[in-house]
């Protein structure tokens, strides 16, 4: 009896020592640039300059740790009351410094990264482009925030996407879809997270994999490919029918165009925790307009 | 010979503008260059000043122009172009001081000699009183006098002037005549392109040009010079004596 309890105590002590040692060593996270950021403890004051990262932090239940966001972060609702510190590309350096953050989360392609680091702030630069990226980033944020089982978000997304896929009829597999993401003809390619979502829903992308994740497509290509269904945001739909050759396309003639509202577009273009909802939006569109 | 050319040819934009010019300008004399429009007078003057690439040779003080170093040549030979634009913001004094550039070492402020030369030049062209005014505020004739002062300030031995009487009214044209006489008296060589034939005939020597060639060079009193002049203008003018001068009148 006594040896068992001594062993249990020793085990507990060992765990305690190990935990303290780990805590004293602090937290080390590697961002997408390969830079290793060391923190004394899990950050309590966070500034996020990328909407998908903001949503992930909140989804992990750590919304209260956010002290500032960029002007485009608008979900979930509590985030809207936070101080806005510029955009992702043009951050307001002074505003960020004034908030005294422990760490700043931002995109890799921003100039502010160097300036903020030069001022002594810790910066984690992450920018997910594919689904694998998104999963990895969520895991990293879970590690940063010391939230156990961050993977549950991904499992929930997975389940949601699968459910959305199953809600579609079998003949949806033969549908050929074109999704125009932003003005100027930038489309969702097969390697983007949007394209991967489309693949999981079972539809075909008219773009080929060699074109890259977000290629800029010649409108003529779309006419030649003759998609069965077109997905586009309300911001970009202006003048679509006037593009040469488009009016005669079957998708336009038969009104097989899904025009996503601003709120829906926000969900669709962010590789964050709402990807399951994105799948549902897309599935609804395919179900409504895709039927022959 | 202060200035001499040997077979000088100049091509502008692919076409030959001067054909094998052989001409000489005597030292301490005033030579005027005349001819119809397009004869190549301005081009000749620019070639003499070394401002245009040319075939053949130009000899300044019996030395090929190519052997003169830039500033050295600029101290010996001064050139005034036709209708020079620009520099409207500079004061008259500053413009005249530009003429002293060949004499000034790199970053030096104007020396006493520079200031004296500029004052003399401005007084000689009656521009001294408005030395503070910006060039852009002057009338055409006043501007021309300032540009002349710039030329004089160089204190060069050879002065080349292209249409120096542009915009000058008759009293100032007379002043210019006196000025040239005085310069020649001091030993300077003056070459001027003039389209006012009457004024040109006041010179010591004349070079008559047509179609990129020198038709005649000789003394102004020489009847052969008058003949060449009348020939080159298709006999539309006649040279007549008037007292101790010559005038050119349309026929």
């Amino acid at each position, binding site marked *: 009896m006594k040896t068992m309890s001594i062993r249990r105590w020793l085990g507990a002590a060992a765990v305690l020592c190990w935990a303290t040692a780990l805590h004293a060593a602090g937290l080390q996270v590697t961002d997408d*640039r390969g830079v290793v950021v060391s923190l004394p403890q899990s950050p309590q004051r966070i500034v996020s300059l990328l909407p998908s990262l903001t949503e992930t932090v909140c989804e992990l239940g750590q919304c209260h740790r956010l002290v500032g966001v960029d002007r485009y972060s608008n979900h979930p609702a509590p985030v809207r009351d936070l101080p806005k510190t510029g955009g992702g590309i043009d951050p*307001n350096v002074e505003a960020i410094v004034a908030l005294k953050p422990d760490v700043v989360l931002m995109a890799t392609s921003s100039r502010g990264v160097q300036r903020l680091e030069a001022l002594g702030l810790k910066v984690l630069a992450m*920018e997910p482009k594919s689904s694998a990226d998104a999963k990895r980033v969520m895991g990293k944020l879970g590690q940063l925030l010391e939230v156990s089982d961050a993977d549950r978000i991904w499992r929930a997304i997975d389940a949601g996407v699968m459910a959305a896929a199953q809600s579609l009829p079998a003949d949806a597999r033969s549908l050929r879809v074109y999704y125009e993401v932003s003005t100027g003809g930038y489309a969702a390619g097969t390697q983007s997270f949007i394209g991967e979502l489309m693949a999981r829903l079972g539809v075909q992308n008219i773009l080929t994999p060699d074109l890259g994740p977000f290629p800029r497509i010649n409108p003529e290509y779309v006419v030649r490919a003759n998609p069965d269904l077109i997905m586009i945001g309300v911001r970009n739909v202006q003048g679509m029918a006037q593009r040469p050759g488009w009016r005669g396309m079957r998708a336009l003639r038969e009104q097989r165009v899904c025009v996503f509202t601003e709120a829906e577009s926000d969900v669709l273009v962010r590789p964050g925790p709402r990807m399951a909802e994105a799948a549902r939006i897309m599935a609804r569109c395919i179900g409504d307009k895709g039927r022959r | 010979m202060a200035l001499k050319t040997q077979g000088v040819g100049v091509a502008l934009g692919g076409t030959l503008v001067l054909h094998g010019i052989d001409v000489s300008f005597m030292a301490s004399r005033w030579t005027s260059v005349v001819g119809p429009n397009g004869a190549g007078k301005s081009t000749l003057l620019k070639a003499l000043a070394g401002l245009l690439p040319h075939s053949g040779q130009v000899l300044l003080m019996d030395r090929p122009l190519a052997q003169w170093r830039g500033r050295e040549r600029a101290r010996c030979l001064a050139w005034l172009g036709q209708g020079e634009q620009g520099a409207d913001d500079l004061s008259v*004094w500053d413009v005249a001081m530009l003429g002293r550039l060949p004499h000034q070492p790199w970053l030096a402020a104007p020396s006493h000699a520079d200031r004296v030369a500029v004052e003399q030049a401005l007084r000689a062209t009656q521009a001294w009183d408005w030395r503070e005014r910006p060039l*852009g505020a002057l009338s055409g004739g006043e501007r021309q006098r300032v540009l002349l002062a710039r030329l004089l300030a160089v204190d060069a031995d050879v002065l080349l002037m292209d249409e120096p009487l542009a915009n000058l009214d008759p009293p100032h044209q007379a002043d210019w005549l006196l000025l040239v006489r005085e310069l020649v008296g001091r030993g300077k060589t003056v070459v001027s392109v003039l389209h006012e034939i009457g004024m040109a005939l006041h010179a010591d020597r004349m070079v008559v040009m047509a179609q990129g060639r020198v038709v005649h060079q000789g003394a102004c009193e020489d009847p052969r010079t008058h003949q060449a002049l009348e020939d080159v203008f298709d006999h539309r003018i006649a040279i007549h004596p008037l007292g101790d001068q010559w005038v050119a009148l349309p026929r």
Partner: protein
Amino acid sequence: MSGARHSLWLASALLLAAAAVLLLGAGVGSTGFDSVLNARTDPVAWQILWDIRVPRTLGAWVAGGLLGLAGAVAQGLFRNPLADPYLLGSASGAALGVALALALFGTSPFATQWLVRLGLTSAAFAGAVLGVVLTLALAKGVQHTLRLLLAGVIVGVVLGAGRDLVTIASPDTLQAMQGFMLGSTGFVGWAACGVMAAMLLVTVLVAASLGRVLDGLALGEATALSLGLPLGAVRGVLVAVLALATGAAVAQTGLIAFVGLASPHLVRSIVKTTHARLLVLSALMGGLLLMAADVLARWIIAPQELPVGVLTAVLGGSYLLWLMHRRRRPGGGL
């Protein structure tokens, strides 16, 4: 000479105004005047004041000085009142450098480590110098002014197309490039300030020493040559000055229009003087202009910021419109 006296008066006025705007700039920002009041007690407020606001305001002054000087050099060298420091392909080169750096940031991890150290600023500077070198190669030297201008425009267009190609190839750089194109002093720290200040000192000294040659050039190339001025060598040095000044400014603050164009005109409308003084005054005027625009950009919609390039375009554009209106009125000659 009254020209000298007026120039001195203007220079003093510009310096005094700059000092006043600097003080104002230290008090303006997203956290308002509180940072100044708390500077002694709160280390973050002190950091905001000393590490953020002062260097960027000062940086705006120095960058404006570089652009103003470059504008005066360009207008004197090309004898064209509409000449702009961006005429030699330096702006397009800088933009291309930034685009390439941004594109590599996202794709190759090897490139990111190296580039992180060098920074986007060096990429922009290298691009600016490359643009000028290309222009000089195309124009076959600096002998002919018109050919130089033409080559600069061609190189500008070609490098701009190159930048568009890079941006299209990696579309996530599109937004970043747009941000760069609008210009901002938001990323200027003390190091950047120091680099620009050193460049400003060097370029002003070199350019001012060549002021007399620019005066001679004002009467025409032929006259300048006849005065024995070494035009080829001087043009080369001045083009280098132009490239350095523009590249240094663009590398730190992005593309900011009109400062280089308007500064010499503003100086000339107040004082008529020789080039040596005009170059220095143009630098001082450009500095004041950009610094004032920067402070305004931070103040008007505080706590948010307007891109400073937009403000200089509005201010500079209005000034040029007013200038045109004045010229059109009868008797309103300059």
